C-alpha cells in the first residue's frame, strides 16, 4: 500500500516552511528567523502511516501543526484531500477541521483540566455537528468505548486518569468527527512502556477499522518501526531521509539516520553488548542560525569538504527512497529524472 503510486496522496506537502520570527533592535523589527521547518516535502497516501522521527527540537511538532494549519505557515503548499489548506481562510479551515485532527504530544497538557472527559470529547461535536444532547452523549460514550475507556469515567476530570488513559481521551476527541487524517504528535512519548503498547495497538486497530491515515511523529525509533509504513527522518528543520520502513531500518543511508538507529538501546543485554554505537560529537546547531551547507555537517562522522559549503539536494536515490546527503548525491540530470518520476506518478 505504501508505495502504491497510483492513488492520489491524501496529504501532499510541498516545500513547507515555517519560520518563527525573532524580533529585536530599537523598533522591535524582525531581525531573524527560527527556521523551525525549512522547506520540506512529502506525501501521505490514504490509509498509510508516515512516521516522522528526529531528535528533540528538530521541528517535528512544528511540521505536524503546520500541516493542520495551526500555525500560519511561512511558505509552501499543503493539500489535504484535494483542498488547499495553506491558504484557506478561517471559515474554510473551520469547515475542514472535521477531516483532519491531531493527537497531542503531552496528554496532560492538551486536556483542559477543568472540563470533564465527556465535555472534552463532546467539544468537537458541539462545534461541528448538529445533534441533540442525548445523541451527543451517546456518541461520546460510543467513542469512549471505541478507544477502550470505561464509560463510568465520563464525568471524571483528566487529572484522575493515568497517562495512557489520558492519551485515549485525546484520541477519542480526535476521532469524534470521523476524520480521515490524524497527526499523532508523539502520542506515546509521555507514557510508560506498558501503556505505550496499549496506545500503539489502539491506533493500529483504529486504522484497520476506520481506514485512518496517520502522520506519526515520534522520537522513539522502535515504536515508529512498529507502526509506520514509511519513515521520514528530520534534522534541523529539514528531512534528511525518507524511505519505506523496512529499507530504512535495514540500511539507513543518511549518516544521521545511522547514528540515530545505532543509539537506540536494545532491551536485551546479550544483543546490547554487541551493538556498535555511533556516538555523535559536536554542537547541535541552533535552528535560527543553521550551518552553511549540509545542516548535519557539524556532527557528521563522515563529513566531507563539500558538506560545509553546498546544501545537499533532497532527491530520490532508489525507488521510494529519498535522501539529502552528498554521499548519495546522484548526477544532476538523474536527479531531475527522478523528480520527474514523482510528478508523473502523481499525474497518472
Amino acid at each position: 500500500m505504501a508505495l502504491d503510486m497510483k492513488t492520489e496522496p491524501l496529504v501532499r506537502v510541498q516545500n513547507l516552511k515555517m519560520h518563527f520570527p525573532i524580533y529585536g533592535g530599537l523598533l522591535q523589527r524582525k531581525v531573524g528567523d527560527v527556521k523551525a521547518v525549512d522547506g520540506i516535502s512529502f506525501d501521505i497516501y490514504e490509509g498509510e502511516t508516515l512516521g516522522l522521527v528526529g531528535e528533540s527540537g528538530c521541528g517535528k511538532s512544528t511540521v505536524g501543526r503546520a500541516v493542520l494549519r495551526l500555525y500560519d505557515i511561512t511558505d509552501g503548499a499543503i493539500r489535504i484531500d484535494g483542498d488547499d489548506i495553506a491558504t484557506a481562510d478561517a471559515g474554510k479551515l473551520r469547515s475542514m477541521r472535521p477531516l483532519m485532527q491531531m493527537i497531542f504530544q503531552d496528554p496532560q497538557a492538551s486536556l483542559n483540566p477543568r472540563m470533564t472527559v465527556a465535555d472534552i470529547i463532546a467539544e468537537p461535536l458541539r462545534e461541528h455537528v448538529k445533534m441533540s444532547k442525548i445523541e451527543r452523549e451517546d456518541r461520546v460514550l460510543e467513542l469512549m468505548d471505541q478507544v477502550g475507556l470505561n464509560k463510568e469515567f465520563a464525568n471524571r476530570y483528566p487529572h484522575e486518569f493515568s497517562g495512557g488513559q489520558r492519551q485515549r481521551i485525546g484520541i477519542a476527541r480526535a476521532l469524534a468527527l470521523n476524520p480521515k487524517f490524524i497527526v499523532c504528535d508523539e502520542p506515546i512519548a509521555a507514557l510508560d512502556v506498558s501503556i505505550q503498547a496499549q496506545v500503539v495497538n489502539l491506533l493500529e486497530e483504529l486504522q484497520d477499522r476506520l481506514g485512518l491515515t496517520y502522520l506519526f511523529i515520534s522520537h522513539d525509533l522502535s515504536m515508529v518501526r512498529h507502526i509506520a509504513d514509511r519513515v521520514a527522518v528530520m534534522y534541523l528543520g529539514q528531512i534528511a531521509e525518507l524511505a519505506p520502513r523496512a529499507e530504512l531500518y535495514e540500511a539507513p543511508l543518511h549518516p544521521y539516520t545511522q547514528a540515530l538507529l545505532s543509539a537506540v538501546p536494545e532491551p536485551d543485554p546479550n544483543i546490547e553488548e554487541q551493538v556498535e554505537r555511533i556516538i555523535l560529537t559536536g554542537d547541535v546547531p541552533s535552528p535560527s542560525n543553521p550551518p552553511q551547507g549540509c545542516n548535519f555537517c557539524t556532527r557528521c562522522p563522515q563529513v566531507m569538504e563539500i558538506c560545509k559549503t553546498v546544501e545537499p539536494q533532497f532527491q530520490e536515490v532508489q525507488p521510494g527512497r529519498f535522501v539529502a546527503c552528498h554521499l548519495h548525491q546522484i548526477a544532476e540530470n538523474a536527479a531531475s529524472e527522478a523528480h520527474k518520476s514523482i510528478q508523473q506518478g502523481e499525474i497518472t
Partner: protein
Amino acid sequence: MTDAANPIAEIEKRKPARSQWWDVWDQFRSHKGALLGSIFFVIILLAVIFGPMLWHLDATTIDIRSRNQGPSLAHPFGTDQLGRDTFARMLAGGRVSLAVGMTAMILALFLGTLIGVLAGYFKRLDGLLMRATDLFLALPLLPLLLVIIMLFRDRLSAQFGPEGGIFILMVSAIGITSWMQTARIVRGDVLALKEREFVLAARSIGTPNRRMITRHILPNVLSPIMVSATLGIATAIITESALSFLGLGFPPDFPTWGRLLFDSIDYLQQSPERVMWPGLAISLTVLSVNYIGDGLRDALDPRIRGR
C-alpha cells in the same frame, strides 16, 4: 472494557452530568474557612436584607432625647448624635454597602477580566489595552468622579430615581476606576495559558475564539480573579464611604457602613463602640469573602477537588 454496556447502566451514567456541582459543593463544604466564611456572609446578608423589615426602629428616625446613648435593650448598638438607632443604621447601611461593594466589585472584575483576556489573547490589542490600563491607573480619581457625576447624575436620577441613579453612578464610578489590577494579572495568566497545549488542541478542533475564551481560558484564570474579588469588595466599600463623604455619593441621611465608620471617628473617645460596629462589619465581610474565595477556588479546581 469494550463490552456493550447494559441500558440501565447507561441511563445511570447520564444522570450524574449535573452532579458536578455537588462535587464542587462537597469540596467547598470540606474547606473549614470557606464554610465559616459563608455562614458569616449569609448571616450578614440575611441581616441586612430582612433586618430592616424586622427591626422596629427606622434608620433615619431622629429621637433627639436619646442621643449619644450606649448599648441598651432598646438600642442594642447604642444611638448616634441625633438619637438614631445605630443597629437600624447598621442594617440599612449594610444593604447599601454590600450592594455597592458587590456590584462594583463584579463590575470591576468583569471589566478587568474582559480587558485582561482581550489583551492577553489578541496580541494586536495588547499594546493598546495595556496603555489604556496605564492611563486609567494614572487618572486622578477625584476629578474624574466629579466629572462623571457632573455629566451623568441628573440624567441617571431622572431615569432611575435619585437613589437608583446614584447607585448606578457610584457602582460604575468605582467599577471603572478599579479594574486595572485585575486586568494586569489576568492578562499575565492568559498569556501563559494561551501557549498551553489544550488551547492548541481546541484550535485544532475548530473552536472559534469566542468559545475558546469562555470555555478554555476563563475557567483557568479563576484563581487570580478570586483574589481580586476579595480585595475588590473591601476597596469598593471604603471607596463608597470616601465618595459619600465628599458629597459625591448617596444623600447624607443615607447610612452606609463606610459613612457610619467615618462619622463615628469623631466620637471615638466618647463612644468607642460606635466605631467598632461598622469597622467590624466591614472586616468580617471582607474576611468572609476572602475565605469563600479560597474555598471556591479550591472547589472549582478539579485537581484539588479530587484530593
